[in-house]
């Protein structure tokens, strides 16, 4: 079984360690993570770097991996109902437009994410808040 090697940056702290993943492409699974010779980590990893990737295999330990958009159709406290992407996107867009129309753009708050999504998604989020919604109400959990 030929394993594909892909290098990435660890998602678990600001040290920015480089990890080399060995991937079984056919099974679409990570086989192991080994330290790569990154600028900051110089061929070492901590426990999260070594072993913090198997959540991708969805082991059903703590929480369910989200796979379908969901809406509380009956309002607050009602159960979440799985919907199509089209419906979810349209629903969010409509509700946000409605609130923006009613209370103004500053009635909407958005967050960036200091975690997994990455810089591009953060850039787009703040652009969305600023350009599409029209507010500077965007922040993230930098302080935790």
């Amino acid at each position: 079984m030929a394993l594909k090697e892909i290098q990435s940056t660890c998602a678990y702290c600001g040290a920015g360690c480089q990890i080399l993943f060995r991937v079984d492409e056919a099974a679409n699974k990570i086989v192991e993570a080994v330290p790569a010779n990154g600028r900051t980590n110089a061929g070492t990893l901590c426990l999260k770097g070594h072993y913090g990737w198997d959540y991708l295999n969805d082991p059903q330990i703590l929480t369910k991996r989200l796979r379908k958009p969901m809406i509380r159709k009956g309002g607050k406290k009602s159960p979440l109902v799985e919907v199509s992407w089209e419906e979810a996107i349209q629903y969010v867009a409509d509700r946000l437009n409605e609130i923006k129309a009613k209370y103004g753009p500053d009635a909407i708050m958005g967050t960036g994410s200091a975690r997994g999504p990455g810089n591009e998604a953060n850039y787009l989020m703040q652009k969305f808040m600023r350009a599409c919604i029209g507010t500077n109400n965007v922040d993230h959990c930098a302080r935790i």
Partner: protein
Amino acid sequence: MNYFVKGNPDLCIGCRTCMIGCVVAHEGKHIFEVDPDSYTFNPRLHMVKTAKISVPVQCKHCENPACMAACPAGAIQMKDHAVIIDTSKCMGCKSCMDACPFGAIDMVTEAGKFQADGKERVVANKCDLCSGIPGGPACVRVCPTAALTLVKEDELADAMEKKRMEAARNLFRDNQE
């Protein structure tokens, strides 16, 4: 001589990567794919933290092992420069645990193996120097601060020889003065 893995408290940062490394090495990589409850998490070394120290403690692979002497089942043997427990022979009597002066043996459940009353088997667990695992002791390999060293005969002998020479030189200097 038996080999042993030695922790250096000056280098250890207490992160316990070694403990997981140990389990992964012994259980095999398949643990990342199986049901999370179908394997047991039994590190063979344990982090000790006090105000003065952080360092993992594990079997020293004594030359005259007290655990081996205490075992009534003949489950502990010396093999490949290590003191190794054959868990299939172990009945969990804790004699070895009581005998070990380092607290290096603990008793752990064996996933999927049961006793007559339906409870999971509990057997002695300790460092085996990753006997049979390619690459040698996993704890040494994964430690991010290189706080663990596998000590072999040559290294120990060299270190002792170096110290003897140093002592001799010092005495020689004293004698000359």
